[in-house]
């Protein structure tokens, strides 16, 4: 490409959902789309790109695409791939340059990133081995309590006496929840215990990264108000959550795509 790119496209292929974002040189969002990754990361990426093409028909030859997320290397149409660690940092830094510690809790992993003054990661920790610190934990527990996932957080916020969930493993915590159900505990209190237990686990991961400065939370789990509430209690700090916490990786990738062309 001889001319500078006019558009940046970020494609974030997460384990649970795939996100795409299209921005122009002024960093204005022209299109964005999110859908479940399902069995094919490539297929999900293609459908996302089609969706943003409908939202904002652009001259694709004037764009650069960067893929990120766990499926980042399988997208042949991307010009380059960059890890979600860097993309989330850049995306969050664009939305709120004050954030110094970012916690991202996705469907099947969680990460904590210290963001430097220039918006780039300086240190990070990942949990991609244990499902108990991920969105999957809440999904399984909502299933046990027969509550739609989107209502799970609000249910927990109605608790007056949260149950104690001591297990930090999804499988064993499920048995523990069933025990509480059997003991006649209220669904609200069990739900609150589940959220508090997961918040404690994420807080412990975040404490591994030394940082001073405002804290941000992204990823699908940031949409859950009870998780934000309990994490804030656990860390003793206010937590900033962007409007679309699932999109920051794709946004960062799109910004990096434009930087790439410069």
């Amino acid at each position, binding site marked *: 490409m001889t001319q500078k790119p006019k558009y940046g496209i970020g494609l974030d292929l997460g384990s649970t959902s795939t996100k795409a974002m299209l921005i122009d040189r002024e960093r204005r969002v022209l299109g964005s789309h999110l859908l479940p990754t399902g069995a094919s990361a490539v297929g999900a990426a293609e459908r996302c790109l089609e969706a943003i093409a409908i939202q904002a028909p652009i001259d694709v030859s004037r764009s650069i695409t960067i893929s990120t997320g766990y499926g980042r290397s399988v997208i042949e149409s991307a010009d380059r791939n960059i*890890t979600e*660690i*860097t993309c989330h940092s850049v995306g969050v830094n664009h939305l709120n340059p004050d954030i110094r510690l970012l916690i991202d809790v996705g469907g099947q992993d969680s990460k904590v990133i210290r963001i430097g003054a220039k918006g780039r*990661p*300086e240190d990070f920790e*990942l949990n*991609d081995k244990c499902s108990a610190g991920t969105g999957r934990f809440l999904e399984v527990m909502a299933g046990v309590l027969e509550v739609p996932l989107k209502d799970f957080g609000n249910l927990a916020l109605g608790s007056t006496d949260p149950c104690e969930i001591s297990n930090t493993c999804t499988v064993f915590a499920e048995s523990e929840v069933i025990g509480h159900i059997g003991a006649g505990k209220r669904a609200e209190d069990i739900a609150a215990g589940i959220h508090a237990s997961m918040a404690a686990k994420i807080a412990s991961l975040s404490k591994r990264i030394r940082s001073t400065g405002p804290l941000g939370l992204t990823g699908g789990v940031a949409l859950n108000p009870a998780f934000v509430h309990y994490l804030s209690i656990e860390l003793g700090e206010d937590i900033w959550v962007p409007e679309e916490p699932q999109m920051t990786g794709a946004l960062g990738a799109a910004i990096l795509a434009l930087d790439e062309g410069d």
Partner: protein
Amino acid sequence: MLQQVMFRYMLEGHTASEEGKLAWVTSGFPVEIPQAMGVTSSYPEQYAAVVGSEKVGPTVCGFAEELGYSQELCSYARSGIGSVLHPDDSPLNGLPPPQALLACNNICGTVLRWYDAVSELTEAPVFLLDTPPLDDGQSAHHMRYVKSGIHKLVDFLSKHFGTELEEGRLREVAELSTQAISLWTQCLEACKKRPSPLNCADRFLAMAPVVSMRGTDHIVEYYQALLDEVNHRVREGVGAIRDERIRLLWDNIPPWFNIFKFFNGLAKRGVVFPADTYTHAWSGSISGDDLFESVATIYSNVYLNKGLDAKVDKMCELIEDYNLDGFILFSVRSCKRYSLGQMVSKELVSERTGVPGVIIEGDMVDSRLFNEAQIQTRIDALLEMLL
């Protein structure tokens, strides 16, 4: 030349075994003593690295697991036990059968139990040279204790193999060992140059003789040839990799089953590893009036027998001396002694040197514990911080 040296090692092991003069030893054992007493050594840890390199770790470890050993047990120990149980189904048909098992716990405590298990299977007796971990230097009573252990070792070998220790012979062996280690150290230090003449996998292979044949004359020749080649590369400005852009430190044993793919893959991206904590572990010269005291000092002060502070100091020193841009700590599931404390080390080393690092998880032999995608993301993120 390396192949010839290692072939000779295997042949000598088999011959010694047939003559009733073979001992299996741990990697941190003072082999100069049995060597000077005419007892040949074979190394189960090195053999386990061969099991890993041959990509049969899960199979050979599986033989030990079938007997009831946990997957949590060190994969070197599982490979060792597994290959004794089923030598015909193991690489090189296993190690030649031992007449004695010499363990030194300066590298870990597992070796004793592992050798006990092998002793049950082979009926070879175990000798333990106990070197309690050091925290803040070696005290006089620690030295006396280890030295008395060396005297007991000599008694054990004398009785068991019907041999004696002559001081003159020990001095010769110690001198040969010192020469090999000195040449090896010079090869390592040449990697301070930019571009680095050796990469990680080069050093992990080239160290085999200094691990397994210290005290013999032919390995001095080998290390002299290696040093000549390394010096030639430095003079000509020939690097171990084509386009050196990032210099990293490696900590811990490598994933043997993936060693070339892993380091060569990074080399293609301009990443070289001029230093690592592992191949720098064989150092120190046995000398002075009191050779036993010298042996007790060197073998008590090995990297893994010291506290976390010493490990952090060593890593910082290597990062500074070798002008490195970052570091990778390989958390090896098997090797608790090496991997414990890496999270704290990472923080301290970054703080002191100002360079970033990352911890990746896996194993040196058991490839079932190595998740490439997870490791890739961590390393990619580190490189993005550096580029």
